[in-house]
């Protein structure tokens, strides 16, 4: 009885794993953890902003932005405006022409396809996290 049960569990596990793999294959899109910022961008005639986590974490640990600079760790929770950035807040802490390129290079950040919804992208997520 016990071995039958364990067989069922194993096959169920394998089926789940396989379907997840298949899903992962189909869903390849963007780079894992890219964030689209489009609360204001397109409304003001600019392309949406694509923020690549991969690029930044090679250069900075998570805590630099998420602890010292005060970015909340939840897509949509940070009300990032261009005025604040130019004022030296949020992205403007580094993107000031000293640490990283300044705000005059609009298109390097405002680089997204028109019509993108704000949020975080990943390629092999499970069904969640639903709140992103």
């Amino acid at each position, binding site marked *: 009885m016990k071995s039958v049960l364990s*067989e069922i569990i*194993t*096959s169920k596990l*394998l*089926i789940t*794993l*396989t379907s*997840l*793999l298949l899903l*992962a*294959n189909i869903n*390849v*899109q*963007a*780079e*894992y*953890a*890219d964030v*689209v910022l489009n609360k204001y961008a397109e409304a003001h005639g600019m*392309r949406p902003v*694509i923020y*690549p986590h*991969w*690029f930044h*974490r*090679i*250069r*900075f*640990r*998570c*805590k*630099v932005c*998420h*602890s*010292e*600079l005060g970015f909340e*760790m939840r*897509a949509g929770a940070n009300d990032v405006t261009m005025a604040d950035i130019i004022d030296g807040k949020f992205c403007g802490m580094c993107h000031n022409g000293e640490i990283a390129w300044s705000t005059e*290079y*609009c*298109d390097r950040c*405002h*680089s*997204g*396809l*028109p019509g*993108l919804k704000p949020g*975080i*992208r*990943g*390629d*092999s*997520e*499970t*069904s*969640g*996290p*639903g*709140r*992103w």
Partner: protein
Amino acid sequence: MRKTIFFTSLLLILSHTIYAGPQQKWKNLAEDELHDPANPAIIELQQPAEALSALPGDYIGNKVRWVNALRHGYIEPRTNFFPETKIRVLDLDIIMERTGEMGLVKFPHKAHTEWLDCNNCHDKIFKMKVDANPINMFAILQGEYCGRCHGAVAFPLTECLRCHSVARSKFKGKFGAQYKDAQHKIQANTLAK
């Protein structure tokens, strides 16, 4: 029945690895369905493959073992912006007991605090007390607790065994914080204050 499923899975996994291939691991920015190929500045941006192919590989997420990349010196990301910021790294494992039929969860503070500060999680996401957090997979899958990062910016929730990594039958110690000695306990508890 079991054999058939096993071999089908194996075949799919293998084909997945071959199909994914090194050249398809990271999409070009112009083809990632996110960047606008019509943007003239797209050629000024670094391509993911250029940066990520030099780092320790993974088969999920963005195909990089970030903890290893940092630990083995492949990357040297800055630890702080302000010179006065205290760099806090804690080496303390937490063994979580209530994991149903899955293996016990070993949470390594070290791998996490090499990237994050205490205050990223404490007390906003996790109370700093063993058993004080009703962590469960339903909440995690909804983006709470560990799901705040895992599945979004850190390895996805399909990797069950990376967290459920300790066999219940083999664990003989006490659940909770795995202090090495009394001194370690004092150090750990003063760090976050």
